[in-house]
């Protein structure tokens, strides 16, 4: 039980770091990293529940989350490169300038 609490606290802190990154960072790459951290916090919690409590159904959700993270990474890098071509920067807030110029 103690082991699960250690994992849960680590997952919550990781989730907090990711949430802080999503809300405060202003470039695509760090927002992307933060989103991956959010997903990994969930995976860590599910894996820990499967190990300590035998909740093996959570592992199926964990695999689905990993697949979604892969798709999100592919789409994220695409947007990242496209935004850089449009604006010459990696800042999502400046996308509106490029849209207005066009």
């Amino acid at each position, binding site marked *: 039980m103690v082991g699960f609490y250690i994992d849960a606290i680590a997952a919550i802190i990781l989730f907090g770091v990711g949430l802080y990154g999503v809300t405060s960072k*202003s*470039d695509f*790459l760090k927002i992307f990293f933060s989103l991956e951290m959010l997903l990994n916090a969930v995976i860590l919690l599910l894996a820990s529940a499967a190990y300590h409590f035998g909740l093996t159904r959570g592992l199926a959700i*964990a695999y689905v989350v990993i697949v979604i993270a892969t798709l999100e990474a592919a789409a994220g890098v695409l947007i990242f*490169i496209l935004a850089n*071509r449009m604006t010459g920067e990696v800042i999502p807030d400046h996308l*509106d300038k490029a849209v207005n110029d066009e």
Partner: protein
Amino acid sequence: MSVLILAIVIILAIMSLAQKNTVPAVLSFVLMMFLLGIYYILMDEKLLGLFQIFVYTGGIVVLTLFGVTIIGAKFPKFEIRPWAVSIVTIVIIGFLIVPFLLPSMPLGGKPIPLKDQVKIFTDFYAEIAVFMGVVAASVLYGSIRMLHTLKYGKE
């Protein structure tokens, strides 16, 4: 051992967001994902650990490095947003309180039979519904905000 690995994971997560240069940030991220994969393998979740290592350190990070190498981008300056700190603090405190509010699980080291696992998940249905509602509201707000910004420009 597990505490040490998880502490290093959290430190690397913070480092990957705090680094100014691109490549050290990506490398911190790689190491964090690799350590998480090792941790899953130590927890007897070998398939999940291997998935983690192959997908994250082998796929996503290489893809990211490829993108970064193509555009050669540098990170912009850090912007201080105090409301972000307050949101994160509230969320962390909220999550830390939840385990104390939950009823104790029927445990004792024994694996829970598959037919009973549904009951455990449905006991927390209300909490999950509230959490998903908050996430959905955030996504909705973000989408509307982005559409507004793209249509009318930044205020």
